[in-house]
């Protein structure tokens, strides 16, 4: 009956979202990938094919920075996976305990760092760890560990790990909340059935709950991966665009910003910037594909 009529209202409902999304997100994304294939020669834009990528990966001046940033980025991600997610899961496991008092209070308090901007977090920690102010050394002194103190953010060998841990401190609330939600959705009958078989406490966590929340852990891992590989703000707020000391905290986001925008003596180059963006895009895409096709489809989902 209606087959011949065009249902305009569908187009009207879809149009604004699709237009803005396409114009401001999808089109620039592909345009950036396209710009990576050009270069500026004598004020004119010339097509150079994959030359920018060749420079990025193989030219000693660029490749050293690129591999440094990429390596640092992987370390940043590994610290998150090894510290943030286990702590998040542990906190969620405690919080989801039935009849725990003040659970809502703890939950809200632990989530507070997550809502604050990187600028606040970066500077606050910079001040606290500063040897000039002396909060960190005097606190270590109080527990007799003063010898352990070093100006962590200023030392090449510690700065990146310190920043990664600050970021962990900030974002631990997210895995905590997601795992907490997953744990709450486990039906009571399953746990009771386990109890009947003598599985309680810690072994109930390892043998019943953990397998059931594996899909959520997968989601958290991919969210962490994507978040870490386009991170920028914390490093910029705490260490500046040069990602000091001596580029030891440089990650892909800060490297792209410096290249694209220019910084101090370095001139901005949108085409090399696009090439770095292209590399980031590829890395994120590979990560997401590994998750979608390699992990998610193989994970056993239990019908609850």
């Amino acid at each position, binding site marked *: 009956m209606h087959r011949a009529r065009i249902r305009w209202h569908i187009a009207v409902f879809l149009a604004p979202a*699709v237009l*803005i999304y396409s114009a401001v997100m999808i089109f620039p*994304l592909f345009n950036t990938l396209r710009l990576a294939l050009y270069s500026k020669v004598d004020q004119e834009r010339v097509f150079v094919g994959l030359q920018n990528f060749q420079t990025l990966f193989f030219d000693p001046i660029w490749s050293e920075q690129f591999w440094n940033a990429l390596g640092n980025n992987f370390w940043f991600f590994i610290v998150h996976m090894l510290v943030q997610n286990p702590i998040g899961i542990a906190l969620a496991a405690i919080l989801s*305990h039935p009849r725990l008092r003040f659970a809502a209070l703890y939950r809200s308090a632990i989530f507070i760092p997550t809502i604050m901007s990187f600028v606040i977090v970066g500077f606050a920690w910079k001040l606290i760890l500063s040897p000039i*102010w002396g909060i960190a050394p005097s606190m270590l002194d109080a527990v007799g560990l003063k010898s352990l103190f070093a100006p962590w953010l200023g030392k090449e060998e510690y700065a990146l790990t310190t920043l990664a841990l600050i970021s962990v401190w900030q974002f631990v609330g997210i895995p905590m909340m997601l795992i907490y939600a997953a744990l709450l959705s486990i039906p009571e009958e399953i746990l009771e059935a386990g109890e009947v078989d003598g599985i309680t406490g810690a072994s109930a966590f390892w043998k019943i709950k953990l397998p059931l929340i594996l899909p959520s852990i997968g989601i958290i891992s991919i969210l962490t991966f994507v978040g870490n590989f386009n991170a920028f703000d914390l490093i910029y707020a705490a260490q500046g665009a040069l990602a000091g000391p001596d580029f030891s905290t440089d990650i892909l986001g800060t490297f792209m910003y410096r290249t694209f925008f220019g910084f101090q003596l370095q001139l901005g180059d949108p085409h090399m910037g696009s090439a770095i963006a292209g590399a980031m895009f590829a890395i994120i895409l590979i990560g997401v594909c590994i998750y979608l096709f390699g992990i998610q489809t193989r994970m056993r989902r239990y019908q609850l």
Partner: protein
Amino acid sequence: MNKARTNPFNTLAMHGALIFYTLIALFPVFVILINSFKTRKAIFREPLALPDADSFSMVGYQTVMKQGDFFLYFQNSMIVTVGSLFLVLLFGAMAAYALSEYRFRGNMIMGLYLALGIMIPIRIGTVAILEMMVATGLVNTLWALILVYTAQGLPLAVFILSEFMRQVSDDLKNAGRIDGLSEYTIFFRLVLPLVRPAMATVAVFNMIPIWNDLWFPLILAPAEEVKTLTLGSQVFIGQFVTDWNAVLSALSMAILPVLILYVIFSRQLIRGITSGAVK
């Protein structure tokens, strides 16, 4: 219930662990806030002491008020956040309704197309976004930020809202159709009020990243009159690095609005996350 799960020693250990971690989470915020009310001398002599009659001082706040245009920055952040949220919710809900309510050719593909943006960060396209904003003259306007954040928020909004809209009863909508309501009226008058909780969840999810973003204000709108609070405090603190009173006060002033928003919306936020909106 049974005893195995409520052993008093376990309860104590659990509270101990939670209190310990809560202290770690709140300590930096606490230190910044108390020291922003102290004299310079007291900040360095006893950083962990609460301000008392002797050490109390507002000098940092006075510097911030004199030097930085924090009210303007706050207003800019407000406009950008509220504007983007409004557009994300309106356009996101409309698109979600089209996808969940009507069967048409390309529905599935359109849904997948819109979902792409959930996993791919919009920052990757920054170079071309800046070029586009320069070409259209939107650079250094709040509109540039609003458009970017709207595009960034739409994919997840459409995804979450269409899940919820599938649950709205068909009978209700069909009753509306029989009464002669147009599709638009059905959407705005019948469906939207029913998905209000989901809209609130989407709003709260989007609010924090938009308010806190540093990247796009830095690149698209760095001019003084359109600086957001996050960028403004970053620049201000960078200039006053050696003036500890001013830095601590600026940090506290940046923390406060977020903290207030959090106190108001934390229930909604936590309910949103735990109700499985992002599964």
